[in-house]
Each structure stands twice: as structure tokens, then as C-alpha cells.
């Protein structure tokens, strides 16, 4: 009898420890290593290495990270600029791999991941100024990100709807960029995926991307489609987007600016003084698909909704959050939603694959992508 009891005890202990081991694996994806910035060399706030040396060192160690899935082209262009192979590691959406040094030169959006790395609020890593960044705009490999688009068919059938939507959205973006704190609160109210502190940080940073161009000059016409910036984006896309489908690859090579954007709706919206002369919307109930979860990245649309700008324009707007692998181009193309927010590259690739999407405004005027590194990892 005693032996049986012993066996049972051993069985229970071993199974429990097995389960515990597995959960230990889960745990390290949390904030276990928070504040590991206190380790050796954490007080470093600069390095004597140049960007080129940093990139080459990280590349030689195979520790450059990016999320892939259409976000990787700027990093590939940067690597090629310095004559390096364009390999990178697949980075997950948290920054744990950066924290634990399995990636030493990690991709980070200025308004999101970079804040998580630097700041010290809940869920962030608190590296402060012990990390440095490499800016895609300064490196000359910037590509345009968040835009506003619909299908060509929708725009042709509902020109007034598009004009009014662009008008009200830009009004929302203007207000949001002037009052980022209030915009952050509005977004938070509409169901935020992140903390209110992070939302406030994000709003500040997004405002910079909307009101500054790739050369660092201020932008007064929010939403304008700047030819030079779009050409640079398209050229890089043609160079680095590899499509296995021969027909799509050819179509991509033949893409011109005018084949995927139409400035007329934007021009009309900007020319209007009070938005009353843009005509009655043909379709009044419209929806917009975001590229990601509700966050200040899309604050202009939330502000336009909250402040009633859409309502004033005669539109009843529903904002549809994205997240994960949601394909905003597909959602707009098959008519699930009317408008969408995507990156220029995604739109161009989707058109090459057979869609007929049309950009009607370019909200972000410069790239928000940085490569972030710890100074302590790049000492000479």
C-alpha cells in the first residue's frame, strides 16, 4: 500500500514540474526582463560607432530584425545601401527579442515600439536614452506609410462621398496634430489596445510623421500626395518587393504614380472652404478599415468621428479596427469596407496582384520606421 502511495506522489510531482517548465517558457514572453537596462554598460548614452559600422556589425552577427510581411523593404534597402546581404530575422510584435539581445538591431516604429523600448510606463522596457536609433528618412531609404484608399470603382461611382470623406478626415487629422493629448484621449475612449500613457506618447509621435516630410521640413497641407516622396517609395518597392507570380511582377514594374493614386478628390477637398460645396454624398453609410488595432496611429479618423466632422459632411462612418494579419487591401477590394488605411507598398503590391485600388490621400509624410539598438551592444 505504501509503495502505491509513493508512486502516485512521484507521478504527481513529476507531472506538475513538467507543466511548470512549460509555463516557465510562456512566462519569459512577459515582462520578466523588465529593467534589464541596469546591466553592465547601461549608463552608456552614446557610441562612437557610425550608423554604417553599427549596421555592419549587427548584420555580421545576423541580429537585424524586422516583422517581415511587407514591412521589410526599407530595411532591405538600407542593407543593400551598405553592400550587405538583405537577410533579417523575423521579429515578433513585442520587443522581447530586442530586450534579450537575440536581435541587437531591431525594427521599431517611432510612435509605437520605440516608445515601448524607451519609456518606463507599464508594459514598456524603460531603456531611456541608453538606446540609439537609425532613421530611415535620414538614410534616404524611407517609404511612405499610412495612406487613405478605396477602390477605383467606388471612387468613380461615389465621387462626392470620397471628397467629403477626405475633407472630414483631414479636418480630423489637423485637429489631432494640433491637440495630440486630446486626440489620444479620444482614441482611448473608442477602445484602445494600449495604455493611456502609451496612447499619449503615440499621438505626439504620429503628429510628427503627419506634419514633417522626409527631409525634416514642416508640412502644411496635411494629406497631400507629394510626388518626390511617392516616387522614392515606388522605386524602392519595385526594387525590393519580389513577387513570385510573373504576371504580378511585370505589372509591378510597369506601375506609375498615376496608376494607383488620384489627387482630384484631395484637391477638391482642400479647395473647399467649409466643406459645403463638395456635393451630396452618393453613399452616406461608409466604413473605414484600419491597418492595426485602435490606437493613436489612426487618431485623425477617431477625432473626425468624435468631433462630428463626418456627420457635418453628411456621412455616417464606422471605423473597423484591424490587427494581426488582417489584409486591409482585400477587405476594401471585396467591398466589406469602403475605405482603408494601408502602406503605399501594400497598395502597389495588391494592385500588381490584380486589385484596382486608388490612393486618395497620403496621411503620413515620412517613414516612421527606425532601427533601434542598445549603445552597450555597439562599443568599439
Amino acid at each position, binding site marked *: 500500500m505504501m509503495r502505491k502511495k509513493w508512486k502516485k506522489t512521484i507521478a504527481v510531482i513529476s507531472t506538475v514540474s513538467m507543466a511548470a517548465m512549460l509555463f516557465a517558457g510562456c512566462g519569459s514572453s512577459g515582462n520578466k526582463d523588465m529593467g534589464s537596462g541596469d546591466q553592465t554598460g547601461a549608463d552608456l548614452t552614446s557610441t562612437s560607432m557610425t550608423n554604417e559600422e553599427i549596421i555592419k556589425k549587427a548584420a555580421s552577427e545576423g541580429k537585424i530584425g524586422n516583422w517581415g510581411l511587407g514591412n521589410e523593404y526599407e530595411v532591405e534597402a538600407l542593407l543593400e545601401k551598405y553592400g550587405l546581404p538583405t537577410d533579417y530575422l523575423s521579429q515578433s510584435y513585442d520587443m522581447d527579442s530586442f530586450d534579450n539581445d*537575440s536581435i541587437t538591431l531591431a525594427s521599431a516604429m517611432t510612435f509605437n515600439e520605440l516608445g515601448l523600448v524607451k519609456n518606463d510606463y507599464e508594459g514598456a522596457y524603460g531603456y531611456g536614452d541608453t538606446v540609439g536609433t537609425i532613421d530611415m528618412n535620414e538614410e534616404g531609404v524611407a517609404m511612405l506609410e499610412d495612406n487613405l484608399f478605396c477602390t477605383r470603382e467606388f471612387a468613380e461611382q461615389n465621387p462626392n462621398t470620397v471628397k467629403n470623406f477626405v475633407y472630414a478626415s483631414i479636418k480630423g487629422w489637423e485637429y489631432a496634430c494640433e491637440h495630440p493629448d486630446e486626440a489620444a484621449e479620444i482614441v482611448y475612449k473608442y477602445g484602445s489596445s494600449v495604455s493611456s500613457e502609451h496612447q499619449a506618447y503615440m499621438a505626439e509621435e504620429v503628429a510628427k510623421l503627419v506634419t514633417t516630410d522626409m527631409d525634416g521640413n514642416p508640412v502644411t497641407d496635411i494629406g497631400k500626395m507629394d510626388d518626390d516622396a511617392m516616387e522614392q517609395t515606388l522605386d524602392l518597392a519595385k526594387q525590393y518587393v519580389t513577387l513570385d507570380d510573373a504576371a504580378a511582377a511585370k505589372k509591378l514594374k510597369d506601375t506609375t504614380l498615376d496608376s494607383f493614386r488620384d489627387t482630384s478628390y484631395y484637391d477638391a477637398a482642400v479647395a473647399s472652404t467649409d466643406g459645403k460645396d463638395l456635393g451630396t454624398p452618393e453613399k452616406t453609410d461608409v466604413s473605414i478599415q484600419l491597418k492595426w488595432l485602435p490606437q493613436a496611429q489612426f487618431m485623425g479618423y477617431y477625432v473626425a468621428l468624435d468631433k462630428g466632422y463626418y456627420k457635418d459632411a453628411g456621412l455616417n462612418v464606422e471605423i473597423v479596427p484591424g490587427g494581426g494579419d488582417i489584409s486591409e487591401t482585400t477587405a476594401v477590394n471585396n467591398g466589406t469596407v469602403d475605405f482603408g488605411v494601408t502602406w503605399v507598398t501594400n497598395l502597389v*503590391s495588391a494592385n500588381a496582384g490584380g486589385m484596382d485600388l486608388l490612393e486618395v490621400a497620403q496621411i503620413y509624410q515620412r517613414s516612421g520606421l527606425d532601427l533601434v539598438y542598445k549603445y552597450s551592444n555597439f562599443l568599439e
Partner: protein
Amino acid sequence: MYTRKKNIFVRMSENVNVQKALGVILPVLLGIVIFVLWQTQVIHKIFHVDVFTLPLPTRIVSIMIDNISDILINTKATVFAAAIGLLIGSVIGYVIAWVADRWKGFGSGGLIIVTAFNAIPIVALAPVMTNWTRDVSPDASVRSMVSKILVVMIVSIASMSINAYRGLTELKPYAMDMMTSYAAKRREVFWKLQFPNSVPYIFTALRVSAPNSVISAIVAEYFAEYIIGVGRQIRENIVLAQYSTAWAYILTACIIGIVFYVVLMIVEAIILKHRK
């Protein structure tokens, strides 16, 4: 006495050779019908999908032919992860079954735990394994492969251990008593009675876990650090709205699954040939 001649259809349906042939012809016919409906876009009309999200088979195949070298590289990575994971997982599963039979009090509880592990979704398991294996090797391609193999392994363990346990314990009546009366050693009982008895159960387990291993490897590729594999390509292409190319890889995944199954059937037929 006059017996009415059976009509031709009844006679045909009773003929063994005809039955065998039908077993091949009917599925092939169904395949051809689906192909024709797909190619002529009847399927698109029935399900209200466009040629964009469900490209025509000819287009998918032409992309496969154009990119055969890329597809082979990705296929190799996926097959390697699936096959090695399946092999290791099955061996471990069998050992667990053997342990469960050898030390009965210890074992039945252990089997329940193994089944519980099997219930963890692959999407939850894969990121954990990626995290776990980050110190395995400085080479990302190696540690990603290890993490994928681990995922496949865990999925394969459960079906093998449960089936093998049945194979080891559900013996012919009195077989064990006879072995005892021969004063057979434990090792002899295993090799002469239990192991042969468990072989068909091993194949039952593999029939489930072979296709599963391919699926697990594909999902694990979604979360791996090193970018390679059929699963990763499906994801990349769908995100970039390249549905034709994504379908080329989906078809590749189907072929891998079918090949795994067919190889298993052939091996089973050879090994179990002299049975019954």
C-alpha cells in the same frame, strides 16, 4: 428452375475487379469534375468569390512551375521539420506508452497529462517554443528548426502514446497468462508478444499524426524567427494580397500532406503484408 438473369449493372457492381477499378475511377472523376467547375468559374459563381481570391488552377500551376526551385527550398524545410518531429515524437510517445504499461500506477496518470499537452493549440505552443529555443544556437536557421521540430514532436507524442498503450495492453485473451506459464522474462514478453501486437496500433497513430505533423510544421513556421517554409510563404503572400502565389503554396502544402500519407500507406502495406 428458372432464375432471372441479373441485369448488367448488378452484375458489374458485384464484380470484384470492377469494384477495385471504381475505387480509383470515381475519386479521379470527382477530381476532374471539380477541376472543370473551378477552371470554368462555376465554383466562383456558386460561392460568390472572385478569380482574385480563388485563382484558376491553370494560373496556380503555372506559378508553381515558374517558381519550382523556390518552392522546393521551402518544401524541404517544411518536410524536414515535419518528418523529424514526427519521428522523434512517435518514438517518445511509444516509450511513454511502454513506461505507462511497465509501471501501471505511474502510467495511467501520465497518459492523461500527455493528452492534456496535446490539447494545447499549436498557435499557443509555437511562440513558446521559439522563446524557449533562443539559446540553442547562435544560428537562427538552426534554432528555428529546433523550435519547429519541438512543436511537431509534442503534437505527435499524444496520438502515439495513447494508441501504443492500447497495443501493448489489449492482448489476445490468455496470451499473457500463457507467457507467465512459460515463465517468460519481461523482455521476452515485450518482444514476443506486446511489440508485435502493438504494430498495427502504431500505424493507426501515424495515420493521424502524419498529416497533423505537416499542419503543425506549417503553423510553427508562422512564428519562427528564421524566414523559410511553405507556411511562412502562404502567410507572406496573403498579407501582400498575392493570392495566386499563396494558392501555389497551399497546393504545395496539400501535396506534402498527401505524400506523407501515401508513403505511410506503402510502408504499412509492406510491414503488415504477412499478417492476418
